[in-house]
């Protein structure tokens, strides 16, 4: 397998109302040497799309959800013959400084690299409980041992991306990707990433955990 370079990688940033963070995220990605950046604006109601510079901008005309935004970005990247993609959130909760570590891990042989946030006391309790529930469900149902199922910070080779392409449009996308990876026996690894929370009410909570659990069971039964 030829070694992946930074120029082979497309960074896909999904963004919804991230005018506060998007410029900084793009700048920090470029500082790491990655210049192929896609920002998918999921019909933000603020000035997110106007602030996107030095990156390819794909705009949804209506809000479709994170999964749909990631799929749009992935489709574009594959059309550009990307050899690998790295998904990163546009809200600044994923440190772009860790991008090279994802690339190194892909070059070590993994087809998917999952970023796992360190569990600290800063992590809101409802998120911690949701994580535990979903993590165990994924391990039991799909035999995938991933510490942080819900983190959207992950890298995939183009081949793996085609294998795990998802149908979810919402926050269940991360779980579906892992479920598909388990079913397709895709080689994966996990790296620890920083835990950054700007907004403790944003993101997936304990109740969402039950919905994700239901979907994990549904996929197991129907696919």
């Amino acid at each position, binding site marked *: 397998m030829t070694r992946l370079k930074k120029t082979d990688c497309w960074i896909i940033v999904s963004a919804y109302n991230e005018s506060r963070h998007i410029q900084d995220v793009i700048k920090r990605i470029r500082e790491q040497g990655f210049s192929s950046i896609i920002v998918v604006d999921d019909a933000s109601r603020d000035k997110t799309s106007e602030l996107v510079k030095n990156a*390819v*901008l*794909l705009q*949804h*005309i*209506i809000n*479709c959800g994170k999964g749909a935004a990631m799929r*749009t970005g992935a489709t574009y990247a594959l059309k550009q013959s990307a050899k690998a993609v790295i998904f990163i959130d546009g809200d600044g909760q994923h440190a772009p400084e860790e991008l090279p570590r994802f690339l190194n891990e892909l070059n070590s042989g993994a087809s998917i690299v999952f970023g796992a946030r360190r569990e600290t006391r800063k992590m809101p309790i409802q998120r911690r409980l949701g994580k535990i529930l979903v993590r165990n469900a994924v391990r039991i149902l799909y035999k995938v041992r991933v510490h942080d199922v819900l983190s959207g910070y992950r890298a995939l080779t183009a081949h793996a991306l085609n294998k795990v392409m998802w149908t979810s*449009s919402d926050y269940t996308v991360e779980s579906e990707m892992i479920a598909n990876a388990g079913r397709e026996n895709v080689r994966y690894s996990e790296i620890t990433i920083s835990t950054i929370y700007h907004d403790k009410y944003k993101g997936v909570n304990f109740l969402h955990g039950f919905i994700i659990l239901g979907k994990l069971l549904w996929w197991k039964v129907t696919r």
Partner: protein
Amino acid sequence: MVLPVQIGGAIFILVMLYLTFLFYKKDHYDRNVFAFWVFIWCIAFLMLSFPSLFTGLTESLDVARITDLYVSVALMFVMAVTFFNFLYVKRNERKLEAIVQKLALDRVKK
């Protein structure tokens, strides 16, 4: 003797008939769909207002009262409609996403 529930039910059905007619006139559906729903509302009206007409049916189905039959049939109907609504919503959701994605990819800004 006319029961209050029969009066309430009759008013409800008359309102639904009116709405059915109104949306037909606004071209929300064609004549066949309009005729189907008018038929449904008429049957519902007959069952509610003249329950004795259906005595034979309740006896053959071993149902104690026409109201019980009414509720059972209505519940099954609602469940079927809910199921088909779910199917159509999911289908439309997928079509919408496909359009949104296509537009985003066609209008890429570099």
